[in-house]
């Protein structure tokens, strides 16, 4: 048992953090809000150059040949920066999916020459589909990769103005299918893990920003961070993040090592990460007060991303249980010591809003 990242993993993550601090500060996120179909090209290209997009691509196609444990900290940093790009869909979902299917398109994605969007089986819409080259879509038969040029997109609007959402109409069939149900389940787990990692980063960013503010904002002749109520709000956020992070890292390892309980672990991670990030949002806003309630302050960039991601890829904000909905189907949850609990957990979660019970995403039409 060794539950820690390697120095190389930490270095890669730190490099991405530094890069995004430079190339994706709040002003850049705001640019994604202000309309058009702008991309954060500089950040994206720099990440491609660093190999970030191809972390889980095999070396044979120019990737790094790493796994989800190598990628998870990087994705956390993209959450911290509220990077307005489909990096989860591209680097965590599409690249390994296509690489495993022997599909040539994996190379272009991992090199940064193209990017992918996706609609999670739990969701209805694709984010940043307009600037994506490829769409990963799910149906009852498995998972598909469709060129965006072959799909019709209809723009929808998110509270997070940086998230350009689209309804997708595409023709799915044998020719578009890149994997069966097992590949689909794995792709979903990777997407949910990626979003969970981003939520950790968002939560940390919200906490850091609020701690800084609480140290300098004075009321009643003292920094508000000296009041016990504010201290306890922020301590609660720290607590939630502290216990969410190991679940996320464990889930990354479970995917990377093809652990039989992988999907359960991902759901647990997503549940805790969503709860922690949504709590961080609530506390951040409350401690900022009115000043955090304007779009002039950067706070809302992270808050709204947290709301959106908290509800995406199999979870609703604030509801740990919703994200567990698909936790346990046909698999034993938890560690061996807890295995007696599994059959109950299975039965329990089958009743929730569950994938694969939900027959298929509504946002796309099957026309094959």
């Amino acid at each position, binding site marked *: 048992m060794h539950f820690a990242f390697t120095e190389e993993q930490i270095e890669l993550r730190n490099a991405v953090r530094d890069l995004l601090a430079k190339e994706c500060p709040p002003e850049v996120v705001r640019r994604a809000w202000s309309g058009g179909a702008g991309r954060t090209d500089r950040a994206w290209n720099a990440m491609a150059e660093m190999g970030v997009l191809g972390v889980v691509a095999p070396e044979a196609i120019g990737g790094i040949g790493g796994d989800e444990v190598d990628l998870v900290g990087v994705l956390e940093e993209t959450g911290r920066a509220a990077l307005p790009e489909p990096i989860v869909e591209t680097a965590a979902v599409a690249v390994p999916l296509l690489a495993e299917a022997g599909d040539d398109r994996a190379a272009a994605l991992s090199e940064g020459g193209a990017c992918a969007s996706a609609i999670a089986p739990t969701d209805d819409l694709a984010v940043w589909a307009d600037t994506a080259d490829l769409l990963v879509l799910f149906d009852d038969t498995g998972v598909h990769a469709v060129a965006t040029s072959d799909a019709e997109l209809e723009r929808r609007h998110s509270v*997070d*103005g940086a998230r350009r959402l689209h309804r997708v109409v595409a023709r799915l069939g044998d020719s578009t299918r890149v994997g069966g149900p097992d590949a689909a389940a794995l792709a979903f787990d990777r997407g949910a893990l990626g979003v969970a990692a981003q939520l950790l980063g968002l939560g940390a960013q919200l906490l850091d920003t609020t701690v800084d503010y609480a140290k300098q904002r004075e009321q*009643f002749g003292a920094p508000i961070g000296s009041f016990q109520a504010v201290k306890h709000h922020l301590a609660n956020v720290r607590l939630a993040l502290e216990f969410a992070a190991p679940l996320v890292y464990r889930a990354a390892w479970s995917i990377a090592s093809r652990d039989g309980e992988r999907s359960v672990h991902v759901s647990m991670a997503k549940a805790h990460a969503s709860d922690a990030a949504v709590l961080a949002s*609530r506390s951040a806003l*409350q401690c900022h007060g*009115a000043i955090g309630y304007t779009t002039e302050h950067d706070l809302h960039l992270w808050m709204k991303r947290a709301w959106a991601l908290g509800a995406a890829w199999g979870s*609703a*904000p604030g509801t740990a*249980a919703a994200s567990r909905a698909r936790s346990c189907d046909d698999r034993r949850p938890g560690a061996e010591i807890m295995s007696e609990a599994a059959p109950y957990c299975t039965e329990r979660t089958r009743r929730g*809003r569950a994938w694969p019970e939900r027959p298929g995403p509504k946002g796309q039409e099957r026309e094959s």
Partner: protein
Amino acid sequence: MDLTFDEAEEAFRAECRAWIEENRPDPALPSGDTREGFGLHRVWERSLFDARWAVVSWPREYGGREASLWEWLIFEEEYYRAGAPQRVTQNGIFLLAPTLFAFGTKSQQDRYLPAMASAEETWCQGWSEPDAGSDLAAIRSRAVRDETEGGWRLTGQKTWTTRGAFCDRLFGLFRSDPEAARHRGLTYFLVDLRADGVTVRPVERLDGDEGFAEVFLEDVFVPDDDVLGEVHKGWEVAMATTGSERGLTLRSPGRFMATASRLVDLRRAAGDSVDPAAEDAVVRAYIDAEAYRWQTFWTVTRLAEGERIGAESSLVKLFWSELDVRMHETASELLGSSSELIDGPSADWMKGLQFALAGPIYAGTNEIQRNVVAERLLGLPRK
């Protein structure tokens, strides 16, 4: 104890309901916190006023019906039940008007109340300043005596002024005696936002509306006629208003009962695939809205008998603001990944969530309200 409404009250309810159903805008108006929507809401408010529904509890001479508190509650229940528009006159009629009734001269009342009720003249509040949020007594904007002109000259900055970008007038506190201690030496002024020296800068709110404004005042003249209450006694005058804001007038139960009811509809539409936590939260919201209604009726009975409520209003503010957040968070849970949308059928919930999140902040943060409950109702020591 008699927990029924009498025939007259039921008739009043029927009359409200019929008029609102007949007249409410369909489709719904755009947000009143945008410039376009604000104009449309003024038209709606005018029609309310013309039919004497704008300010039912006011005297007839100012456009009211002299309705009882019970009738006012009934009006509110019917108004929100019908999904009628938000009240953009609210800061005037619910925050300023009670103070005008209590402290204003007859001439101030005559001059301001009817125009306020008809939305001819709209009011925003000017409490907060950059360094005076929870700590309201830290107000720095000052009022300097101008004996020659018979008035005061105001200089300073007010902030988080709701709908300040569209309103005609502002009411607020200014420091008239710089020597006096924090809560003293403040005076309550009624300020014309079109006067020389006023600059209004709209600030975009969390939900994207121009709902806030910063108001900069530079040597703005306000005549003595526009001092409300006694000079240097503004804190006492204002406290009556903030009491109203926290307490009964701003948040009648009708609003939360209507939200709870919509939440039940949302849950029904979700069919069988509802998470147990959300399932529980829906029923809890429904019962909490009932609790809020009956606590209000309990309080109103005492008010109708001439009692006054004090720090209890902090309990009320805590309850409605946190209930409102819970209900909207539950809606997000039910909506799942659609909850982030600001177009389509669920958009009102996201708008509502953002609005609800302001509840624990404005009108005194909930941290301050809990202090008030502990110190004034329970008698725990301040320090």
